[in-house]
């Protein structure tokens, strides 16, 4: 199974690969969540929800259910 943003550990980075176009809000794309961009998990709230991420320089908080739909390749 491929990894998603929800699998990142704090401080870890990844490169966004793909996501299902139907379920991801357009707003997220517009904030820079596009394939090829880098994403870093800055902080996670208890129960890993929501997640505070840095996507391509935008600092955002998103819910776990959204994060699980964004596939990434984890960088070490």
């Amino acid at each position, binding site marked *: 199974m491929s990894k998603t943003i929800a699998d990142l550990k704090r401080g870890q980075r990844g490169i966004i690969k793909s996501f299902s176009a139907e379920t991801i*809000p357009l707003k997220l794309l517009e904030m820079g969540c596009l394939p090829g961009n880098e994403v870093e998990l800055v902080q996670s709230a208890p129960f890993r929800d929501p997640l505070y991420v840095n996507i391509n320089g935008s600092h955002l908080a*998103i819910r776990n259910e959204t994060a699980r739909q964004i596939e990434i390749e984890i960088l070490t």
Partner: protein
Amino acid sequence: MSKQLNVALIGNPNTGKTSVFNQLTGLNQQVGNYPGITVEKKEGICKLPKNIKAHILDLPGTYSLNASSLDENVVIELLLNKNDKDYPDVAVVVSDVENLKRNLLLFTQIKDLEIPTILVVNMADRMERKGISIDVPALEKELKTKVVLVSARKRIGIEELKEHIVNYRHLSTEPCLNASSMDPEYFNRLRNAFPNQSLYKLWLVITQDVNFGNVNRNSIGIKEDFITKDDSTLKRLQQKETILRYQFINGALKKTMSVDVNAAKGLRAGLDRILTHRIWGYVIFFSILLLIFQAIYDWSSYPMDFIDESFARLSELTRSVLPAGPFTNLISEGVIPGLGGVVIFIPQIAFLFLFISILEESGYMSRAVFLMDRTMRRFGLSGKSVVPLVSGTACAIPAVMAARNIEDWKERLITILVVPFTTCSARLPVYLIIIALVIPEESFMGFNLQGLTLMLLYMLGFGMAIFSAWVLHKILKIKSRSYFVIEMPNYKLPMFKNVGINVVEKTKAFVLGAGKIILAISIILWVLASYGPGENFNNAREIVEANYSETFLPEEELDELVASYKLQHSYIGNIGKAIEPAVAPLGYDWKIGIALISSFAAREVFVGTLATIYSVGSDEEETIKSRMASETNHILGGPLFTLASGVSLLLFYAFAMQCMSTLAIVKKETNTWKWPVLQLIIMTAIAYLAALLAFQFLR
């Protein structure tokens, strides 16, 4: 008349549009370091060079022209409607230098509408610290328009911006992106059908429905039957559009902007490690709330005592200076005590606004949203409901409006419905005076007992809000498309001028707004209390003298008895007696009943009303508090304000929906009377029951 120019300030949330607006117009609109401070359009006038006047419009922040929440929709509706009186001659896109890439997305969209567009790169004062440098002339060439580096804080670049606005006719309106490259065949068809429209505008109108309501297609002449595409294809095309735009932006920035990565990081990372920590984050959040309530109670008691006594003295002074007569009585017994009832709360309200303003300006509010989202979601709310709930402690009206940036309609509706349970500043006057009367001034484990009670009341308000949210969440059957994205802005040192302006403006609005109602009500009440129908009122002295003919009474005591006899048989006394049966089970007498009813206009009227009623009934120089303390319960005997009746009153005010303005704003925000009417009925019923139980139980 010189020609007037329409200028619209557009940009992502929290980029400093309102700050630029304030600089241009010299007005003081509220700013804050939280995305979504401005939720409505605001207008102002700016004098430009060459004697031209510009009409400046400050708009809510939006991430793109594909709206996903109500506040964002304001911008789209304006830009799609050429006939709107505010339709801009020139658009000024305000961007944040630290997020330029993302900000440019919106810029390219607006440019593609073929409106002359100027790019403001704001917060230029932070460039050096962040290691950012920009080649402005090269960027201007890439974006085919004028670019200005601005610092709204330091007032840099504002004059240059004005120059560019005046010369807007020289700006190129060439689009950034060739929209038809998304789907050439489809766009050719569009172009042939509507040769006079900008292609991108057509595209926007067609796609709006996918995300969000009702842009009027007829406004540009697209017939409903012009076959569009199915939703998922449109959505895919929107994504393609976004990707194409970012390609363009990346290309433009690569050549013109450089960031020294080593200079970045710093403050944000360090602070976030603590403030959003899974344990310390919450400890700090709740400590901040605790601090706020303790401060409101303790620090403001000194100026309050002073104000209370000053008003009592002022009353006495007017009475001795002005000639005796009905007019003097109106002033000294009606108006002054009534107004004193509001003025006394200025210190507390100012403190409250001060704290909320600091929380917003510093960037902390978004962290609170992050910490609370999961918990709030359980109750059918969103993390973003934290802001309405916290600012609801100041006033429910801006709080209801602050719910606009919640994307999900169900979460937003629930937030709007429960916000009036939070303890707004108008409840403070009532709480404070009752607490002072019935809760002993002692310490409990180092905490001031009265302060603790107040804190309990605040928690009760929150608790009730959360609980009813949960109930609504279970009852309401609304399909929701739950998603949540919030930006975490950089921390900033609050700008004291902004905070100061905010506190002064809000306090002023509170005092003037409440002052007007209270003035009117206190005059009406005074008239009703000073005149009465029939024998009993007119011959009060004779009747009282006859009743007490057996016992010898000193002149003073007799006067007092007469005054209170008169009050009982005045118009207001009669009204009060009529409603007394309804409020007696809660432990109130008819005077409180009157205050209760008049405070359905606005809660803060309560103290003013009692002050007016009581001062008509007595002649001595006294503070409101001591007057209330000496009242007796004529039904049950003993003092009127006991623990039981006090708690009952506190609970009534905690739960009842007593604010016309809130009802009006809820109607406006939900577009129907259904919700405000339900709010009024249900909240008041809960209040009555709670007060009834409390009094009967504690008695």
